[in-house]
């Protein structure tokens, strides 16, 4: 099947510091993955792992330093903007920042209808908007004439999703969509993604640090750390049997809502992020409990272990994915 989105060796380098002492920070380091329609693909990782930079490059907000982003039918990066935004829509982290507080929420919905010429009359527009709001569990009557301050974060996030549904996109990019939403209504948004995937056959690129919801959504997952994909494969396999020591640490660090399963053992934390970005060899070597000499010198290859790709020297005897391809 033709992937709806494919990313090949995507790299983004940021420079920081003065002209004389410049640090080169590789925020995204040759990341490759592909996703299908009707599938949730999760990019997971902690802050500073490069997941949002990857999303920004896919959305065209940031120019990649190198690498390719291929949307369906091999359309290159220079696609017409209207084609792009009809196929790909985004939902962002903070629903309170998405909407102008002085403007009625319905204005955003009508503006999208007008921009894409989706309706010929106002009545038709209202009908379309109402249908999309119903898909997210609201209706036009609840939204009409109201300002953003009259809604809760969860409602605004759902309105934001309804707006992106107006153009019937094939791919929805959701950047930390539930991290600002209260725990008691968080699952209503995650369940909505499940429905969009199953009923509308949409592809959803779900960017999150919350591995529990990633597990719940299923599909594929790529765990990122300091710009690299450390482990990639089916979400339920990766999160139940993490193979990379970093995924294992991440998985163990999630506080489970079960007093019988408390954290065991102790962990160490990097003092600064910069030292990890500038590390040669495996970026995780400084904190890895199973570190070997080779890890500090040489970057490991992404290797295939029982259907899961792992970037770790512990699995070096397995066949490299790169060799397999060539």
């Amino acid at each position, binding site marked *: 099947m033709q992937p709806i989105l494919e990313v090949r060796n995507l790299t983004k380098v940021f420079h920081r510091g003065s002209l004389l002492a410049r640090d080169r920070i590789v925020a995204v380091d040759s990341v490759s993955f592909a996703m299908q329609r009707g599938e949730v693909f999760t990019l997971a990782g*902690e*802050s500073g792992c490069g997941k949002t930079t990857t999303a920004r490059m896919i959305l065209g907000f940031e120019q990649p330093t190198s690498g390719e982003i291929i949307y369906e039918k091999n359309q290159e990066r220079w696609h017409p903007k209207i084609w792009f935004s009809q196929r790909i829509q985004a939902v962002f982290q903070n629903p309170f920042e998405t909407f102008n507080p002085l403007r009625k929420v319905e204005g955003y919905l009508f503006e999208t209808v007008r921009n894409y010429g989706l309706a010929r009359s106002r009545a038709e527009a209202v009908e379309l908007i109402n249908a999309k709001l119903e898909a997210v569990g609201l209706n036009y009557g609840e939204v009409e004439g109201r300002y953003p301050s009259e809604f*809760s974060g*969860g*409602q605004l996030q759902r309105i934001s999703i309804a707006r992106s549904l107006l153009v019937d996109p094939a791919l929805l990019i959701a950047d930390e969509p539930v991290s600002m939403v*209260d*725990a*008691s*209504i*968080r*699952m*209503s948004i*995650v*369940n909505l993604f499940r429905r969009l995937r199953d009923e509308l056959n949409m592809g959803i690129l779900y960017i999150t*640090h919350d*591995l*529990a*919801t990633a*597990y*719940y959504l*299923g599909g594929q997952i790529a765990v990122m750390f300091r710009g690299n994909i450390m482990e990639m494969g089916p979400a*339920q396999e990766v*999160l*139940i049997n993490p193979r990379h020591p970093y995924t294992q*640490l*991440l*998985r163990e*660090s*999630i*506080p*489970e*809502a*079960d*007093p*019988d*399963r*408390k*954290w065991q053992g*102790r*962990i160490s*934390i*990097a*003092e*600064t*992020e910069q030292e990890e970005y500038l590390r040669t060899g495996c970026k995780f070597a400084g904190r890895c409990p199973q570190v070997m000499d080779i890890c500090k010198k040489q970057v490991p290859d992404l290797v295939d272990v029982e259907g899961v790709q792992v970037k770790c020297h512990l699995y070096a005897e397995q066949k490299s994915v790169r060799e397999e391809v060539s």
Partner: protein
Amino acid sequence: MKPSDVVLRTENLKAHYVLDVPGGQKVVRAVDGVELQIRRNEIYGIAGESGCGKSTLMKTLYAWVNRPLRLVEGSVFYSKDGQEFDVYALNKQELRRLRWTFMAYVPQGAMSIFNPVIKIKETYRDFLSSHLRGKTVEEMFEMAKEHIEQLGLPVSILEAYPHQLSGGMRQRVAIALAALLRPSVIFADEPTTALDVVVQRGVVQLLKDIQERLHNTIILVTHDMGIHANVTDRLCIMYAGRIIEEAATVEIFKNPLHPYTQFLINSLPQFGDTGERVSAPGQPPSLANLPSGCAFHPRCPQAMPICRERRPEDTKLGEHRVACWLHAERGEAEYAANS
């Protein structure tokens, strides 16, 4: 519970934000009748979603009430050296002497409390010199160093400027600073929010270390039920300015009684289970305009006629208490008899 075990208790505590708005006053009932008893040598958790009043409760307990927040009713009693006193009856001097030596407060976003232009050790010196008399600068640095070492943090941070440390490290230094004078009660407001999962675990590890070392009381406010399951001994759930349920943490997770607590716990996704999770319907209420009766009734799938009319009082089932008509059969029967 023996009375001598109690380090902090409240009686019908009410603290409201009173705001002047055109045409009158707007009253936000952030803390609306809270009864609490917190023991020595325990980690007590306060859970609830944003806007339920948990941070305001924390400030009120710490006697940090500034306008527009007002203490409307009730009192907060601490017990120190076998004597109980009302914290709102103290004058400013007495209150100042208690702060940091008897009770300490780690506010939300504590990682940004440091002065950015001085080294961490200078912050320690400032802190010590304003609370201890008759120490030389060297003695103070020595104390700071020893304290940092005991808590397992790297001593090199004392020579660093705040911006050189990661957010998680700054947060831990802020918590370590609060524990420096060995207070009997430490309040920590959302200490793990906005931190990465691995760093969260480091912060929780530090809080546990402090509690084990000092055998004191830590009161932990967070909306993250996973953190509560991991560290707290007892837990209360707050909704719309009131405590709706309180029990030992294990009991809350095993046997939640209030429908809201049930939603809160059952909606959490668990590894190894992809079954449908449902969150509570509707939205949390505005504290300026609370629903009648039980504040949860508009969202409650088990709401009864009485829930709309009368607010449920606490029902005590041993150490477990819950404010819900479903568990107050006696109250319901009385209501039916009178109407």
